[in-house]
């Protein structure tokens, strides 16, 4: 009855026989992001008698939430009538858009792609939006429980009947400590997975039910973000700036964002497609380099970091959407992959998918038919239109941009669906890549390194718990991977979780699991697919402030 028989779970042996508490709800939602909360809110609005439970792995809702975030607000109008009087704590209407191409020393304005026109959109913080949505959900009677990760799906005769939450109080070896508290079984008529990008239970079930057999592989990016407090007078509240080009080479997809907030704050961040090829490449370093561009550094210099973090995002779009339902379970938001890549926006699509999912449940009271219902929705149409923009960039920046213009001009009407490759397979071997001069500069803005960056993420894990980054075969790390790729995990992880250290027994992989900010990049990009990210003890992980 366990779905996760395909990955080892250290705690399994000791805790399987344990008597577990059980609770049942009409609907159970995993993940308090925009998708999950929209579902919960809509369900209660339509039928106040339903019991609706949302569980979230963060210590408080919003603490693991990270996005740009410039959002479209129509879905909020759909959910609430009078919300504009008391918007979320961070709420700055966009006043101006800028899009430019960077070289190491200069900045060239580019025409604004229509998808990036942000009139009527608002700069917010996903964390603040989530906290605000949770208040509304609780006022409607939704039960929101933070600090409880879904560890695995519960299956009964081929149907998902709920989830088991994580055990608390296991030591490093997986044995119960005095404080041991077994996870419990939460059951529901339908479980809605709203775990966001690369959800761990979603991953189990997509595999278990082969939900991806008819879709292109999902592709991803990693986004790293910092919120800065600047000396007075530097920001233009509402200004939205995006760039492409340097510090990335033209073979690597990605770009920057710099959003001007109120109170002398800016949100600065960088997104890199995880289909990059160079195993030596470090997205974290690329972001830090961007901050030192001659047009960016003067904005930040003398300011201080309020909070920082990282999170993977889905980039596969329409063609990578898996089948979004299986018996007893529905996938919504970025757990399925509803983000609109050319817009770099997934909050509105997540909210809409949540709304449609609730409507589906109210009408059908079952998961069956959800995939079809979603694919007929306006949001699906939005995703279909832009389906061929991102894939064009696998041929480099220039062809990508040309293709994007073509796809936009034709509004995606030219039939056909461009293909994706799995991100980890894009990585080339050391021997196939010459080390390149990236014209990177000496840095002096904070943070000095990834450890200092993690400090601003306020991440927290009890160090005496099972390592939540399960390596199927650690021997590969020291042998094949070291040789073929030079251990790229030590470069792509933004939190310095993976270190190769010299010991008297030779080189070894050291996993600093307590540093982890739950971005999921390692689970995606490791070339041998031997890293499995599972939720650590509930409430662990970053504590972002308005990211």
């Amino acid at each position, binding site marked *: 009855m366990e779905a996760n028989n395909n990955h080892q779970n250290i705690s399994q042996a000791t805790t399987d026989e344990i008597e577990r508490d059980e609770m049942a709800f009409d609907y159970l939602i995993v993940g308090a992001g925009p998708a999950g909360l929209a579902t919960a809110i809509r369900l209660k609005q339509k039928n106040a008698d339903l019991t609706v439970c949302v569980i979230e792995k963060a210590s408080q809702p919003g603490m693991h939430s990270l996005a740009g975030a410039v959002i479209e607000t129509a879905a909020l109008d759909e959910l609430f009538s009078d919300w504009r009087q008391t918007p979320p704590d961070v709420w700055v209407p966009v006043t101006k858009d800028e899009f430019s191409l960077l070289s190491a020393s200069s900045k060239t304005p580019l025409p604004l792609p229509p998808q990036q026109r942000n009139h009527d959109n608002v700069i917010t913080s996903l964390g603040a939006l989530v906290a605000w949505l949770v208040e509304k959900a609780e006022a409607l009677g939704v039960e929101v429980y933070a600090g409880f990760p879904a560890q695995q799906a519960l299956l009964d005769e081929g149907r998902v009947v709920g989830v088991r939450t994580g055990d608390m109080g296991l030591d490093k070896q997986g044995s119960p400590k005095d404080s041991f508290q077994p996870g419990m079984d939460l059951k529901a008529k339908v479980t809605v997975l709203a775990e966001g990008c690369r959800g761990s239970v979603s991953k189990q079930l997509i595999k278990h039910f082969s939900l991806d057999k008819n879709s292109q592989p999902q592709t991803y990016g990693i986004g790293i973000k910092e919120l800065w407090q600047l000396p007075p007078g530097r920001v233009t509240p509402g200004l939205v700036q995006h760039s492409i080009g340097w510090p990335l080479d033209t073979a690597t997809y990605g770009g920057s964002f710099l959003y001007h907030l109120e109170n002398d704050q800016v949100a600065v961040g960088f997104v890199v497609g995880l289909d990059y090829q160079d195993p030596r490449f470090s997205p974290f370093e690329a972001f830090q380099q961007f901050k030192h561009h001659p047009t960016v550094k003067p904005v930040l210099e003398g300011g201080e970091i309020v909070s920082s973090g990282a999170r993977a995002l889905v980039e596969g779009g329409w063609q990578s959407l898996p089948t979004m339902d299986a018996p007893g379970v529905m996938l919504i938001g970025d757990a399925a992959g509803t983000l609109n890549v050319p817009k770099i926006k997934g909050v509105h699509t997540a909210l809409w998918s949540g709304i449609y999912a609730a409507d589906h449940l109210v009408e059908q009271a079952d998961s069956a038919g959800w995939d079809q219902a979603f694919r007929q929705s306006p949001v699906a149409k939005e995703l279909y239109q832009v389906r061929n923009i991102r894939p064009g960039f696998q041929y480099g920046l220039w062809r990508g941009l040309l293709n994007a213009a073509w796809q936009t001009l034709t509004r995606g009407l030219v039939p056909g669906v461009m293909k994706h490759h799995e991100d980890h397979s894009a990585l080339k071997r050391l021997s196939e890549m010459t080390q390149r001069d990236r014209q990177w500069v000496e840095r002096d803005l904070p943070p*000095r390194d990834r*450890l*200092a960056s*993690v*400090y601003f993420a306020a991440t*927290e894990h009890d*160090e*005496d718990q099972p390592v939540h980054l399960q390596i199927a075969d650690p021997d590969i790390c020291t042998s094949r991977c070291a040789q073929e790729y030079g251990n790229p995990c030590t470069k792509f992880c933004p939190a310095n979780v993976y270190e190769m*250290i010299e*010991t*008297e027994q030779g080189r070894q992989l*050291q996993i*600093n699991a*307590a540093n982890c900010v739950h971005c999921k990049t390692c689970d995606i990009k490791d070339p041998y697919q031997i890293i499995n990210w599972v939720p650590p003890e509930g409430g662990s992980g970053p504590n972002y402030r308005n990211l």
Partner: protein
Amino acid sequence: MNKILVIAEHANGVLNSSTARAVACAAAIGGEITVAVLTTGSCDVAAQAAGLEGVVSVAELTNPGNAQALAALQAPQLLEISAGYTHVLAPNSTFGKDLMPRLAALLDRPMVTDIMAVQDARTFDRPVYAGNAITTVQVDDDGLVLATVRGASWPPVVQTQAPVTVECQTSDIDLPAHTRFVALDGEQGDRPDLQAAEKVISGGRGLGAAEHFALVEAVADKLGAAVGASRAAVDSGWVPNDLQVGQTGKIIAPDLYIAAGISGAIQHLAGIKDAGTIVAINKDPDAPIFEVADIGLVADLHEVLPALTEML
């Protein structure tokens, strides 16, 4: 003219150096300093207090209840004498922290905890949020100022002057019987407790192997220091995790902290930001630890630590 009463901390007939630190703070406030010593009348602590620089008088309050320093018994004894002063200070040790708020409540006065700097006679700096912020606070009426004094911020005044007179008062007030001392179990380990030690030497990943921790321990024994470690050393299984210093380990403030083979990650530094003097021994001249170390030595610890053991 301020009249400042400093309540002495002592044990087994010896004045605790925290008292001389509190006197230093009193001197910074400025005024006539009196030290109050609560005893059973049978020891010479008062004489030691009488020799502290800047002290003009010592009031010895004797009562059989003073065999141990119990706040519930000592606060009532201080009630009456406090009335004649503008300030009453005590060390911010467990002794002072236990006693002073109780006394303040009996006097219906607010209290300032942990003075680290004196702005003027009624305005002080004190740490909040575990030292991550400093507040400047003011007792802004003209009533009695009660406060405890942060030891680490005030070097003790010296024992130089010719002793001043000791005034002896026997207090015969009724003391409550509801609080009784049972036992004191002084920590008996070979080395001082990491949290309380005045000197600490920590080892990091730079040690290279568990057995090399002996190098750190040898210096510790020479110095009478406690032993600490970085997370990397703990994770390598070289030492138990209760030796970890830093954000998720112990937060300590020894007078002397020696970091050997520790890079100085921000999470480690979070545990030693209030240390008096930081010494770094690291072979990498660019290690971040050197940005905060008061004394740095760029060298191989395998040579330095044995040499230190030899020379100290």
